[in-house]
């Protein structure tokens, strides 16, 4: 029998019964509130030596299913038996799997007796030591040796040199941690002056920025920033501190716009790179990578993605002559138990739990709920509260409103805490002061429960994530923001009928991208995915998905593969009545990308994407693009500055400016402090809708959009915007629901003020400036901070910008700015202002979390020390 044959036989027959027995026993240790089963078989009945031998045979396989079984056997031997020899054997097996973090965890939990090496025979000890040496890498920046798994080692080995790299591994493989270490190493040891780390969401940007700052500690040689401003970039280029810029794809374009021809980065890391396939923003990411690569032909690019099928697909656009390498892993680092929950017949408080494991099912027991779950939300909440009572429990809901309701239900089932943890109290205080005194989050976090969605202010969201990691928040009810890129793992995730966005059932790869977060490698041995009502076809139209990896496909390629739709859209895009455009959601962004590419190259058959599409459809597209390009006099440099904005739209806007009969000054936005500002934005948004693209629709909501934009630019706090919104509802006699109003205000800020408005208003300004230069009215061009950056950060004063440049979140910057009289302070003057009032910060009635951020970012203690000793 071959080794592969033996491994297959072992799983199917040889150890099947014992394996099922340990699955049942290990999973039972993970779940709370199971009905006791005293008559069930125990660990004593298992033939451990045979099972461990099988484990070591399975560990030699490169198949995920075999490795999972080996990991299960090792974990069971360590945690279920009392025999030191069996536990030691389990640890050796973990070593064979290069899972050193799990061994460390077993030691930390005192599941292993100290001095394992001494108890091993000479041969085993030598083998174990050789393996540890083989599986270590030297972090040059710190001089430390790091023990790594197979994936991490292959990444480290292949990441050197100038080649483009695409790495993919399941969540909880230690990707982010390792890549950040590697990034710092590159800057410490190499010639890299400017590195950019791209992350798909502002949430992830803040998180990576914070992690990097933590890793860098006190070093001043490497700066980290998430602001697309020229200062740190230019300092790094001039030989000062090197810089790591953490950006979304939109911010990378903003930086490139600010720098113009000087834009050149040395190293680009693209995290969550599979999101190049996302609708509408995927092509902006693709454009950002291509733009950076055009600006520096020697740019090194590293793509990272979670459990993807084809990481090499990202490398096809590497410039000719650049080597590429894909590092792919599907190896498990932590056990993931897929558990389905079905109600016991006629007993709504009892739920049968069954583990599904590659084709087999293993009943693990019955879950006892505290209360009868009437309705689907209660079902989700009560099962989560019962099974995940010990904490680290994530509950997935299909929307922000539902997440609040489910969190509320979970909290009601928890015992009233005797006293409130100080950190939870501080977060509750921040929620009350930073959002609204009656924001639902506040009383919930006091009980260790929170909800989490995309449009929340980052300071609050990051603190929720931090306290969930530390265990103080025991239940976190989340929405699809979590699949959109937040690095958060959990012990247990509970789901029922998960959807992505509004109404679309989750595809298998999305489900597993989410479910893959169950299991905190190094903190737990196992993670649990509990799927409720697996047979309900409304909840799970295609059943609970089998494990699947994400297929990477660029948004641009996906849209082109739809057939003639793109060419048809382009041929209609030149019409004057934009409101008649159909399917713009699908085609506008990619169409804009194609048009700019055509303008740059003269034909898209000269573009990299032509490798992936047939000549006939490319010729048809070229024809449609040529017809548009013939009408465009705006140059390609200007259109490149505005990814996702169509050049033909920019041209139409230019024509509208030319035919404008009024005073040209009225085309400019008014100062936000002026009375005209709001109305001017109303008119400008209408103009954008009519000529550029109907971005601010429906038309009747433009006034609300304009109001939000003005308040945001004026530097209003979210709390103030919510307060005014409530006031407006009261004075106009309109009814409102506070939670909905709060969520809507947050959404308007994120989606309009920080996303659509900067995108389209900065394009508007660029075309207007072109027009002003052509009519010799350059005197009207303001060379200050561009409107895109002002809107992205919600600032229009020098002082606020300085505070954010110093690393404060907007929430803290705005809170502090309310106390600062002057609007023109530089960074140094802001620091001086705070330093002078250091002793009074606590008395200024800021939430403690804001004071903490002020102290960390503006009053670094080591500086004070070094000054005083100098």
């Amino acid at each position, binding site marked *: 029998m071959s080794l592969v044959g033996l491994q297959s036989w072992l799983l199917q027959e040889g150890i099947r019964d014992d394996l099922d027995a340990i699955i049942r026993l290990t999973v039972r240790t993970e779940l709370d509130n199971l009905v006791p089963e005293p008559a069930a078989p125990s660990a004593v009945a298992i033939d451990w030596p045979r099972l461990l031998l099988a484990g070591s045979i399975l560990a030699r396989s490169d198949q995920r299913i075999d490795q999972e079984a080996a990991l299960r056997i090792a974990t069971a031997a360590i945690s279920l038996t009392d025999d030191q020899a069996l536990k030691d054997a389990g640890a050796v097996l973990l070593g064979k799997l290069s899972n050193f973090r799990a061994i460390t965890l077993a030691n930390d939990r005192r599941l292993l007796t100290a001095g394992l090496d001494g108890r091993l025979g000479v041969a085993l000890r030598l083998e174990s030591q050789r393996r540890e040496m083989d599986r270590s890498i030297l972090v040059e920046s710190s001089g430390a040796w790091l023990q790594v798994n197979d994936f991490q080692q292959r990444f480290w080995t292949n990441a050197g040199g100038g080649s483009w790299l695409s790495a993919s591994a399941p969540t909880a493989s230690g990707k982010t941690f390792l890549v950040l270490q590697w990034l710092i190493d590159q800057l410490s040891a190499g010639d890299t002056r400017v590195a950019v780390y791209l992350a798909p969401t502002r949430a992830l940007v803040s998180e990576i920025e914070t992690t990097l700052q933590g890793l860098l500690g006190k070093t001043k040689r490497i700066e980290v920033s998430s602001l697309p401003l020229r200062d740190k970039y230019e300092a790094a280029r001039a030989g000062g501190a090197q810089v790591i810029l953490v950006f979304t794809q939109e911010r990378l374009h903003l930086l490139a716009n600010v720098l113009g021809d000087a834009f050149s980065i040395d190293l680009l890391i693209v995290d969550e790179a599979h999101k190049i396939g996302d609708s509408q923003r995927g092509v902006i990411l693709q454009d950002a990578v291509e733009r950076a690569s055009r600006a520096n032909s020697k740019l090194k690019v590293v793509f990272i993605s979670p459990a993807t099928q084809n990481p090499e697909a990202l490398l096809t656009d590497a410039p000719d002559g650049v080597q590429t390498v894909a590092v792919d892993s599907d190896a498990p680092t932590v056990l993931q138990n897929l558990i389905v929950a079905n109600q016991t017949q006629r007993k709504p408080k009892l739920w049968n739990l069954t583990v599904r494991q590659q084709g087999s099912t293993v009943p693990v027991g019955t879950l006892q709920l505290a209360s009868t779950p009437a309705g689907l939300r209660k079902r989700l909440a009560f099962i989560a509260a019962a099974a995940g009572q010990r904490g680290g429990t994530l509950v997935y809901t299909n929307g922000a409103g539902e997440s609040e309701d489910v969190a509320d239900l979970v909290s009601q089932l928890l015992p009233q805490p005797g006293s409130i943890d100080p950190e939870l109290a501080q977060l509750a205080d921040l929620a009350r002061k930073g959002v609204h005194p009656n924001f639902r989050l506040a009383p919930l976090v006091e009980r260790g429960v929170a909800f989490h969605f995309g449009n929340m202010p980052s300071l609050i969201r990051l603190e929720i994530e931090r306290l969930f990691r530390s265990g103080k928040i025991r239940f976190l009810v989340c929405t699809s923001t979590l699949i959109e890129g937040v690095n958060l793992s959990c012990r247990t995730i509970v789901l029922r009928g998960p959807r992505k966005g509004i109404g679309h059932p989750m595809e298998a790869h999305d489900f597993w991208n989410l479910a893959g977060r169950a299991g905190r490698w190094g903190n737990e041995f196992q993670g649990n995915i509990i799927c409720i009502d697996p047979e309900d076809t409304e909840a799970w139209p295609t059943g609970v998905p089998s494990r699947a990896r994400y297929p990477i496909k660029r948004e641009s390629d996906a849209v082109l593969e739809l057939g003639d739709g793109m060419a048809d859209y382009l041929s209609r895009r030149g019409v004057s009545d934009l409101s008649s455009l159909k399917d713009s959601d699908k085609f506008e962004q990619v169409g804009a990308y194609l048009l700019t590419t055509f303008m740059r190259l003269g034909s898209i058959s000269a573009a990299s994407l032509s490798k992936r599409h047939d000549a006939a459809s490319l010729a048809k597209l070229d024809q449609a693009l040529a017809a548009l390009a013939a009408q465009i006099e705006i140059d390609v440099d200007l259109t490149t500055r505005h990814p996702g904005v169509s050049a033909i739209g920019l041209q139409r806007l230019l024509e509208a400016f030319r035919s404008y009969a009024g005073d040209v000054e009225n085309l400019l936005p008014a100062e936000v402090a002026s009375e005209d500002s709001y*109305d001017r934005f109303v008119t400008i948004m209408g103009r954008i809708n009519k000529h550029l693209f109907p971005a601010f629709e429906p038309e009747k909501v433009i006034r609300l959009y304009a109001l939000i934009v003005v308040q945001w630019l004026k530097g209003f706090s979210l709390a103030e915007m919510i307060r005014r919104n409530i006031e407006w509802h009261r004075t106009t006699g309109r009814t409102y629901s506070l939670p909905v109003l709060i969520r809507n205000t947050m959404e308007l800020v994120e989606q309009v003020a920080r996303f659509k408005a900067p995108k389209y208003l900065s394009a508007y300004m660029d075309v207007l400036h072109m027009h002003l230069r052509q009519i010799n009215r350059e005197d009207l061009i303001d060379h200050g901070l561009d409107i895109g950056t002002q809107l992205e950060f919600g600032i229009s004063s020098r002082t606020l910008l300085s505070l954010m440049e110093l690393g404060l979140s907007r929430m803290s910057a705005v809170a502090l700015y309310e106390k600062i009289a002057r609007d023109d302070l530089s960074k140094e003057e802001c620091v001086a202002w705070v330093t002078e009032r250091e002793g009074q910060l606590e008395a200024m009635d800021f939430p403690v979390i804001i004071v903490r951020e002020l102290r960390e970012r503006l009053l670094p203690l080591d500086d004070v020390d070094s000054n005083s000793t100098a």
Partner: protein
Amino acid sequence: MPAKPIDLGPLHFAKRGDAVACLNDMLHRYDVGDRVGANDTVILRAALEHHPDAEAKKGCGITHFSVRTADFGTKCFWLNRTDGTTEKFSHRACIYGT
């Protein structure tokens, strides 16, 4: 009743209705948020002199006029004073005095 003529700066109107029509046209030439141009400002300043609350409206002095949102999604003229205050006014009231 005979038509009453009115002068607004350099413009003479034989009937008040014509003056209102002229100001209506002017208003609709502008978008909300626009600052009123120099020539039109002369006419508006003259019109404001006929307003029943002319002195109160002018206050400490007028820097410029704007067109902004009025109630119910319409638009109207607003005056901006040297002290930074702003107030809307009815151009019909300027002509008809009520």
